[in-house]
């Protein structure tokens, strides 16, 4: 599992995840995702390269989303494939972490309500 990050603006960081987000995959990127969540205000997490998501991967995503929220920020998921999106909706994660179809949509979701 791979994690790449790039700072879009001073407060918004885009995180691109690639690979299988199962037990092993979640462990591989868990620390780096936690560090990013603890140091950035807004995270756009690009899931387009994630071919598989299990509950272990969900734990990592929710943990990061919680950390960001505690610091007054927000995390948005971008472009999950059909199966990954079904896992997110079946578990109710879509109500806790917004899902966007593009970077533009995701940036719009980061704006204060």
């Amino acid at each position, binding site marked *: 599992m791979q994690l790449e990050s790039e700072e879009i603006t001073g407060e918004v960081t885009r995180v691109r995840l690639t690979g299988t987000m199962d037990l092993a995959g979640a462990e591989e990127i868990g620390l780096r995702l936690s560090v990013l969540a603890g140091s950035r205000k807004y995270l756009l997490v690009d899931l387009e390269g994630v071919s598989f998501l299990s509950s272990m991967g*969900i734990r990592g995503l929710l943990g990061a989303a919680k950390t960001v929220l*505690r610091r007054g920020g927000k995390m948005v998921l971008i472009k999950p494939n059909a*199966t990954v999106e079904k896992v997110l909706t*079946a578990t109710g994660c879509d109500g806790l972490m917004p899902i966007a179809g593009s970077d533009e949509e995701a940036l719009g979701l980061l704006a204060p309500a």
Partner: protein
Amino acid sequence: MMPTSRLADQIALHNDSREIARLDAWYRCLAEDWPLPAMLVAEMRVCLHEAVTNIVMHGNGCRRIWVAATLEDGEFALSVEDDGPPFDPLKISSGPLAAPLLDVAIGGLGMHLIRSFTDRLAYVRRQERNLLTMARTVDV
């Protein structure tokens, strides 16, 4: 009269998280060969990961895991058997996450996914082993 076709395959694993990659490769190879819809294959892959990951993480005393797949009479079934202490995963309460993000307790999600993606679930303790069967009707 057409004979009823039956497909079956199985794999044995050690109770070790590193074995999940081998299990996943076995499942994806099987799924390529069997006449199954792509979304069903993907959702049952989630179920398989959840069931085996649960054993690997919580199955203290378990040494071996056996997984069998069958496609018969319009049903695709995955059976996960382990030699750990008695444990009925169907007794795990589960549901979608409903609380606000900061309050949400992350537990039981794996079982919730299994319940969401299967049509039939069964657990039995037999011959000192736990046997969980997860099945899905295959639309012809």
